């Protein structure tokens, strides 16, 4: 009698072929960038199904010493097929006007900022704001993103997630080195000063948060600010106003106010001190409106010295990677998306009431440049 794992693999093979068949039907009628994504997914899925066949044919599949390891292989393959079905297949099947426009827009952003890998595909299908799915080469955006400009800087942040993940040794690893050193020093000094155990535990907790996920969010903000300039700081302020408490943090995201500080560090390094100060002024206003107060220990949890070190490290990595900052993009006539984003924020600040008219005509212009009918 075949083993449970054998049957699970047969089921996986059936599911994989089902997704593959659906992808094959989609070939006709897709624009080039969607078709390139489709071809890449077909290739990955075909490789995965060949591995499933190898496992099914393996004479040791049911050996008790190896079976748990084969089951782990099954899980990774099964996760891949579910990921393809829930992201790539979903976007490719829909391929709406909005998805086409946003994907073309992201492709143009990649050219403008010097992101040299193929641009991820974009789908306006998210029910959780922006999401970067690095393994699938996909960014999901809010459903109305194709008709709005002020949140567009957040697309740069999502693209930065791909940079952090794919260029990990240049971007993420040096940051981890700085953070580990910073907290190791803090613990050493704390011990020398005879801090109570509870205080040392707080330092350790902060250490864990920074090295867990916070460094990735800070770095993505910083890369986005490097690419997008003050518009990113403004978009962050706008999003923070919706999120509410600027001092609230969680395991995946640092406090919005700390993210503001990180963004401002990059703007200053990029020579945008005046814009940075103006954004800071708006933040004072936002904090005035917010009932929340800075919690105890906040300034220790978010050391400015550490943020400055990270910003310098990210800035240098961006330069080394050949990414173009906003100043360089301004000099290029072809950088029309970054110009539109900057102009949109200027127009909004100048006259928020008249902004919708500016926005709709700017979007029409972008559409005619990127997805001419």
């Amino acid at each position: 009698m075949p083993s449970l794992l054998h049957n699970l693999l047969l089921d996986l093979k059936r599911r994989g072929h089902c997704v593959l068949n659906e992808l094959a039907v989609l070939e006709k009628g897709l624009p080039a960038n969607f078709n390139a994504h489709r071809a890449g997914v077909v290739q990955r899925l075909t490789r995965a199904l060949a591995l499933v066949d190898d496992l099914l044919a393996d004479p040791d599949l049911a050996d008790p010493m190896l079976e748990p390891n084969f089951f782990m292989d099954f899980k990774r393959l099964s996760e891949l097929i579910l990921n393809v079905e829930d992201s790539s297949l979903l976007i490719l099947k829909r391929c709406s006007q909005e998805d086409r426009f946003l994907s073309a827009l992201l492709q143009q952003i990649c050219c403008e900022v010097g992101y040299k890998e193929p641009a991820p595909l974009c789908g306006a299908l998210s029910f959780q704001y922006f999401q970067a799915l690095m393994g699938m080469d996909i960014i999901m955006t809010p459903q109305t993103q194709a008709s709005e400009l002020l949140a567009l800087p957040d697309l740069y942040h999502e693209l930065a997630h791909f940079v952090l993940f794919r260029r990990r040794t240049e971007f993420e690893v040096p940051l981890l080195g700085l953070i580990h050193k910073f907290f190791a020093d803090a613990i050493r000094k704390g011990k020398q000063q005879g801090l109570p155990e509870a205080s040392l535990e707080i330092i350790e907790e902060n250490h864990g948060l920074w090295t867990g996920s916070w460094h990735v969010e800070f770095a993505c903000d910083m890369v986005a600010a490097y690419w997008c300039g003050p518009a990113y700081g403004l978009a962050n302020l706008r999003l923070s106003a919706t999120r509410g408490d600027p001092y609230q943090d969680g395991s995946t995201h640092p406090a919005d106010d700390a993210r503001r500080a990180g963004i401002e560090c990059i703007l200053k390094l990029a020579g945008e001190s005046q814009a940075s100060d103006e954004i800071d002024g708006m933040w004072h206003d936002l904090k005035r409106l917010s009932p929340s107060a800075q919690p105890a220990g906040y300034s220790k949890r978010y050391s400015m010295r550490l943020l400055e070190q990270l910003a310098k490290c990210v800035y240098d990595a961006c330069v080394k990677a050949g990414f173009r900052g906003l100043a360089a993009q301004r000099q290029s006539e072809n950088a029309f998306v970054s110009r539109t984003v900057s102009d949109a924020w200027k127009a909004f600040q100048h006259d928020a009431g008249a902004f919708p008219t500016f926005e709709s005509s700017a979007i029409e212009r972008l559409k005619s440049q990127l997805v001419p009918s």
Partner: protein
Amino acid sequence: MSDLSIIAHDYELNAEFARKFNDAVLNLKRLYLLRRAITPDAHAEIEKSRSELQHLLESLVLALQDEDKSWTADQAQVPADVLDRLHKRLKGELSETILELRRVTDSLAKGAALDETAFAALDRVCEAADATASAAFRRLRRI
């Protein structure tokens, strides 16, 4: 921007580590536990698995051992979530496990065969890495 981007980042790192570690262990189990004969083609594959596993174990041992030692970039090979899970799972057995993993690393470096005790320690890492990848996947897909 949403939690999902961070979870996707974690999932990819955890799944990649789990896959690499498990594949290498699986290949070596065939040779040393099941005593499968090595064809000339499979020889290169075994050497690759030994070298990959040795490299991953060196990083893992560095990351697991005394936390007062300064962090090196090598430790970034091991996702933080996997380390957390190993710390929680091993608790009282951490120092013995580190010793055992060091012994496996030495055997791999010397080209020596691995025994059942070595694979028991390696399986503990495989299980922790697999559980971490699965947990990240469940968070990502909300299933």
